[in-house]
Structures are given as structure tokens and as C-alpha cells.
């Protein structure tokens, strides 16, 4: 008996980072394949999503230079803009739109911004840090560019699970802080493992002539952390939430300075 099998081409991908599934819709199959590849390990098999974004693709070459990212709250929507994308997101409807060319990097930036906004509501944040899990405990290594985030990731021994070498994802749950794997990578060019563990300590990175660890407390700890937290939105309420989150974080999690020689022995101190 003749039959026809029709397989409907999916026009969406659900990317789930930190337990927050975001549905990305596009009618461009090449772009969707790019997303699948870029977020391997973070593409949800479920079709359920808490947030929806329609991605509209502009022709290549329509980017407008090096305009810096701007995130503003206007008439019930977050507006996000940079030279290579424009996006808006309405938190009350959980829906948004993204205008960009066909590349995964613009989307990556939008997702980082959206996650900083979502995390702020629950006391979490994104921070410029590599992070890893060892023996069931997570460690964060914040630092500016060149401080050694990727170096720490590269030097990690086999028993260490890498969460990211660039942007760490910190969530707060029941008064405890957890580090979560992210697909946001730096020079390592490798997505982090999609794992989660309670944060044991933060090590502010500094390269030096010997390996040593020093405790950092009070205002110095807050400064060290805040200096690496991602602030996109110039919004008073957002800034207050993140400021309070950083202060609460350092009252729960030890902050230390890790001065290190860039070789594998540094990991002998991280146990």
C-alpha cells in the first residue's frame, strides 16, 4: 500500500543554560544548524521552554561598526543593541526578538545579556572567570583578560571537570551558591561541561613567581568579585540587585588570591 512519511523540519532550537530553557525560532535551517553546533551539550531534547526568541536574520554586511553594547529598560521591555545585533525582550510575556546576521557570536552575546538579567532576579550573576568542579565542589577563578583564566583551564588535571574558561554562571538556591557549566568559552574554544556543583571557593588570579594562596576579606573581596561581574544593563534596579548579590556571595563563599606559576602544580593547591 502506498504511503508517505512526512518529517516536519523543526524551525526552532531550545538552548538550556543554568536550567533556563530558551527557545530560538528561525526559518533559516543553516542558522539553526549553526546553533546546534555552537551549543552542543546545551541543546535541550525537550521542546519545553521558559522563554521564546524569534531570530530574524539580516543580510551579511549590514552590521554597523563597533558600537558598544547598550542594554536599557523601556516601556516594559529590555532593549539590547550592539553594532552587530538588536534585540528586545519582554519579561512579562517571556518573549523577544533578535535581529542579527547569520553568525553564532551575536546570539551568544544576546544570551549572555538575557542570562544576566534573569539571574539578577534570583541573586545570581555571570562573572569573568574560569570555573571547574573537583571532588564534587566548584571553584571559580575570576580575572581580567590575561590574568590566567584559560591557563588554569588548560592546566586542569583529568579529574577536573571544566565548566568554562571565560564566563562562569553563578546561581543562588536555598541560600547556597552553585556554579553551572556554560557554552560561553574564551581562548580554549571549548564549551564547558553541562554540570553543576556548590561553590567551595573563589580564587582571584594573579601570575607570580611562586604558588600561594592568601585570604581576601571584606571590601577587598567585594571589589575583587565586583570588578569581574558582567554588568550590561545601566539600570538602577539591576545594578542594586547585582551589588547586593555580590555582597551576599562574599559573605557565604571564601574569596582568596591565587598567585601562581603557570604550570600544572598550581592544581595541587585546589583540592
Amino acid at each position, binding site marked *: 500500500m502506498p504511503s508517505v512519511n512526512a518529517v516536519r523540519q523543526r524551525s526552532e532550537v531550545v538552548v538550556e543554560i543554568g536550567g533556563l530553557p530558551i527557545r530560538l525560532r528561525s526559518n533559516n535551517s543553516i542558522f539553526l544548524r549553526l546553533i546546534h553546533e555552537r551549543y552542543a551539550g546545551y541543546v535541550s531534547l525537550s521542546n519545553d521552554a521558559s522563554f521564546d526568541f524569534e531570530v530574524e536574520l539580516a543580510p551579511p554586511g549590514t552590521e554597523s561598526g563597533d558600537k558598544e553594547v547598550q542594554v536599557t529598560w523601556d516601556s516594559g521591555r529590555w532593549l539590547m543593541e550592539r553594532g552587530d545585533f538588536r534585540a528586545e525582550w519582554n519579561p512579562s510575556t517571556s518573549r523577544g526578538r533578535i535581529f542579527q546576521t547569520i553568525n553564532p557570536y551575536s546570539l551568544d552575546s544576546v544570551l549572555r545579556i538575557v542570562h544576566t538579567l534573569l539571574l539578577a532576579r534570583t541573586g545570581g550573576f555571570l562573572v569573568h572567570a574560569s570555573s571547574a568542579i573537583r571532588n564534587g565542589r566548584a571553584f571559580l577563578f575570576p580575572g581580567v583578560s590575561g590574568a590566567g583564566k584559560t591557563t588554569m583551564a588548560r592546566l586542569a588535571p583529568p579529574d577536573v571537570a571544566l565548566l568554562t574558561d571565560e564566563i562562569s554562571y553563578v546561581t543562588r538556591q536555598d541560600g547556597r551558591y552553585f556554579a553551572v557549566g556554560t557554552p560561553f568559552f574564551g581562548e580554549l574554544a571549548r564549551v564547558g561541561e553541562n554540570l553543576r556543583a556548590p561553590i567551595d571557593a573563589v580564587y582571584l588570579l594573579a601570575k607570580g613567581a611562586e604558588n600561594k594562596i592568601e585570604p581576601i576579606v571584606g571590601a577587598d573581596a567585594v571589589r575583587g568579585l565586583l570588578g569581574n561581574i558582567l*554588568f550590561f544593563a545601566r539600570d538602577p534596579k539591576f545594578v542594586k540587585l547585582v*551589588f547586593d548579590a555580590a555582597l551576599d556571595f562574599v559573605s557565604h563563599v571564601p574569596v582568596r588570591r591565587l598567585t601562581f606559576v603557570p604550570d600544572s602544580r598550581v592544581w595541587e593547591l585546589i583540592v
Partner: protein
Amino acid sequence: MNDKLYVARSTAIAARVLGDETMIMSATDSTLFTLNEVATVIWESADGTTPLEEIVANKICTQYEVTFEAALKDAESLVEELAGHGLLMVSDKPIGQAIPKLAETSWAA
């Protein structure tokens, strides 16, 4: 003529006292400032209704070995700097209800 200065903390900031220091983050550009012990005294006393010279006389000169003139000069410099960053409001009249409230936003709800 009233030449008194009144100072009030801006509402567009996030601030917390940690030990002897005060950390202040500008909510408009997320710049972080740290006040030392003496500056913290002035910051905490900046209620918009107490003149700066009264704060200096009663809160600074009584606790630290400094002349009133020197302390007032330093306090005025501090106030000018903080006001320049939008952290303090300065007026020659008491600042009360005039303190602008932050626009209510609902995104964090």
C-alpha cells in the same frame, strides 16, 4: 543669605558599610567607589537636613584630631567629588521630599 550646604545621598546608588569602609556603586554606570572611615561618617550623616558644617563640627571634629577649618575644607572637597559622580545631592536648602525616587520598574518582579 544662607551659605550652609545640605547634602543628601542619591537614591540611584547601591551602598553598604563593610567594616570602616563604605562601598558605593553608581546605579547609572556601575562604577564602584570606596569611602574611608571619615568619609563614611559624612556619607552616613548626609540626610539632607543637617548642614555640612554641623556634620563636620559634631561628627568629625569630636572624633578626630583636626581643626574645624581643615575638616570642613576636606569635607567640601569630598562632597564636590561625590556630587560630581551623582552619588550625593548638594543644595543650599534642606533636601527632603525633593529627593527623586527611582522610576519603578517591574522587570525584576
